[in-house]
């Protein structure tokens, strides 16, 4: 070789600057990539929270109402049928007109009444039905303001726009300002968002129905997928002979874990709705579909947990004369349980956030009453988000983001539980 060590040194030195530049560049690409991901997480969360946090406060109007028999068109408060059909909006309008007597005529009166949510009438009806003796009396009550007023107070409506281009007229804005100045209108905690079902009126829309729907759905999912998933994992890890059938099962499970969720929706539609004739929009069917969806996740996680139990423990148990089943139930399963539970929680979290398959089985519908059972029509949180995201009213953007916050809160709690469980019971063999 003609080249000497000294030549090599010179050559190497010559290449160094270029190579270190490449090194630095590469490193920067890496950092940038990590920060792109992390920045997106922060951006997403801050956007959602920024848009949604306002939904937890809601404009309320305090009014002195007079249960005026004449306005209600009611002379006998003992007849429930009459109570149900009385003219409550008139009472609300009158209460407003007491403050703004200048609102004369049909148009002005309607505009004034539009400041208060229609739920005010329902509230009055409930009160009067509960206590018919209220008829003729007066009381001071706090009502929800309409969504437009709410948006105005939160700055969601631009006051500088021309009058036709915004939902509130100049006159209405003047009333709102006057009410605010009198201390009768202001933002307060939005209790209804967590305690009511869906509504066409943004100010009344809440997530309780969707939350209960999610709960019922997840109960079914858990009841089915957990025992079956664990049983399948035990069989595959501890009992299954190595043959073609086992291979087929394994390949199937891994494949199913990666099959698009919407395909499971098609299965649910064709099998549960069309063949078995189960009810549309029911949490029962949703839970069935989601349990098929989460089953592979749980099986895979449980298998990994079972596999992580060292063979020495199995040998020790078998060496004592335990049967395979005793070995599994007394030693392997208890040791693998934290891992199994972690996998189950993660699977449940995924099921909680799943939307697409539920669209296929009619869980997209306008459902006001929170479900009271597994066969009542229901939506779930993600579907509710989907429905609200499509609503034209601006106030629903805020609600959608707030519903997302609720959903993410649940997911974070579940994932945190999984992390804690894993770290608390993590064993090093």
């Amino acid at each position, binding site marked *: 070789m003609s080249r000497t060590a000294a030549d090599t040194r010179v050559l190497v030195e010559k290449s160094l600057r270029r190579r270190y530049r490449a090194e630095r560049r590469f490193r920067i690409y890496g950092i940038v990539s990590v920060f792109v991901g992390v920045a997106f997480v922060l951006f997403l969360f801050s956007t959602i929270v920024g848009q949604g946090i306002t939904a937890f406060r809601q404009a309320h109007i305090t009014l002195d109402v007079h249960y005026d028999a004449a306005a209600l068109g009611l002379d006998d408060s003992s007849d429930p049928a009459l109570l149900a059909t009385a003219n409550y909006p008139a009472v609300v309008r009158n209460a407003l007109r007491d403050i703004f007597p200048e609102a004369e005529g049909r148009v002005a009166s*309607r505009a004034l009444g539009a400041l208060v949510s229609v739920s005010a009438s329902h509230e009055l009806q409930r009160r009067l039905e509960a206590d018919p003796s209220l008829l003729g009396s007066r009381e001071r009550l706090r009502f929800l303001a309409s969504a437009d007023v709410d948006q105005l107070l939160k700055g969601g409506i631009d006051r500088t726009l021309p009058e036709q281009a915004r*939902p509130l007229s100049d006159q209405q804005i003047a009333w709102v300002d006057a009410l605010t100045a009198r201390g009768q209108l202001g933002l307060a905690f939005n209790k209804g968002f967590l305690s009511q079902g869906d509504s066409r009126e943004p100010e009344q829309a809440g997530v309780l129905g969707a939350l209960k729907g999610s709960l019922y759905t997840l109960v*079914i999912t858990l009841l089915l997928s957990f025992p079956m998933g664990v049983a399948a994992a035990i069989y595959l890890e501890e009992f299954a002979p190595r043959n073609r059938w086992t291979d087929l099962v394994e390949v199937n499970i891994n494949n199913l874990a990666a099959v698009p969720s919407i395909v499971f929706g098609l299965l649910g539609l064709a099998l549960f709705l069309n063949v078995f004739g189960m009810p549309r929009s029911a949490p029962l069917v949703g839970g069935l579909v989601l349990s098929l969806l989460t089953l592979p996740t749980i099986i895979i996680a449980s298998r990994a947990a079972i596999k992580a139990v060292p063979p020495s423990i199995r040998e020790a148990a078998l060496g004592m004369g335990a049967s395979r089943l005793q070995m599994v139930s007394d030693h392997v399963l208890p040791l693998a349980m934290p891992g199994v539970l972690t996998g189950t929680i993660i699977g449940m979290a995924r099921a909680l956030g799943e939307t697409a398959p539920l669209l296929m089985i009619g869980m997209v519908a306008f459902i006001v*009453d929170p479900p009271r059972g*597994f066969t009542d029509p229901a939506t779930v949180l993600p579907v509710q988000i989907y429905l609200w995201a499509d609503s*034209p009213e601006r106030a629903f953007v805020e609600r959608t983001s707030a519903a997302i916050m609720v959903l993410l809160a649940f997911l974070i709690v579940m994932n945190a539980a999984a992390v804690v469980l894993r770290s608390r019971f993590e064993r090093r063999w």
Partner: protein
Amino acid sequence: MMQKAVLLSVLVAPAMFGAAASAQSARDYVTVVGSSTVYPFTTTVAEQFGKTGRFKTPKVESTGTGGGFKLFCGGIGVQHADMVNASRAIKQSEIDACAKGGVRDVVEIKVGYDGIVVAGSNRTATLKLARKDLYLALAKQVPDPANPQNLIANPYRTWKDVNASLPADRIEVLGPPPTSGTRDAFLELVMQPGCESWSWIKALKDVDESRFRRVCDAIREDGAYVEAGENDNLIVQKLVANPRALGIFGYSFLEENLNQIHGSLIEGVAPTFDSIASGKYPVSRPLFVYAKKAHMDVIPGMREFVTEYVSERSMGEEGYLADKGLIPLPAGELAKVRAAVLSKSK
């Protein structure tokens, strides 16, 4: 212990589920399907009804008028819808289909009027359109300008091509698919009158109606007309994002979104509450809800729901449906509808 727990859960969970699934539960709420145009009104009534009445809130799904009738006419029984929203009157073919499914007695409720608007984003100037312009812009085949007797594939790319007084923007219209009642009404109220500007086509109507329909009702499929599904809300959102496009939907959606979009003038008339109520706006049509009489006695709350629908506080001039953008029936007609419905639903 673990062994027994696993055994029990594996055994009992499927058994429980099987029993729960097979146990037929009674339906104690009203289900409504159908038009997306009527959907916002029916949901409002449903919600009011649910909040004030003793019954469960009806479940309302938005499926399009055509799809709704398919479900509605499927038959009698709890698994079939009780009511259907329709943005046009029921067609004879649907009456036949219903009869075939065993649905013979259907109560028609005319709930009010709705204008069909051709709307654009507030960021663009208001268009002044004639029905002929819309026909030329959207039909699959149009009369050849050189030889009007001859039909050619629609050659127009921009609005200016259609009518020199219009801007030179590309034609891009988001509108309802054939399953939609809005589409039927649009064909009837815009395309056919526009088409009839040519006397030979107008003459065709009496001679060869199916040919007339083929000529007038066929909408172009080369991308200028985008079938935007049944969700009118989505169209509104897309218009906001895409100011070049126009959208076809019901007046109520326009009213809810006046801060973002505005209606084009048709034959010189702007779509407003008053112009539609007075009949001056040419493209307006009645909206309907149909109810199965056979279900009336059986589904809890259905009769009460229908009664609520036709009550003064919902459909009346000052009712809550008017707040949602429905143009109420004139007082006289309302009284007639109400009387008819109440007597039929007994």
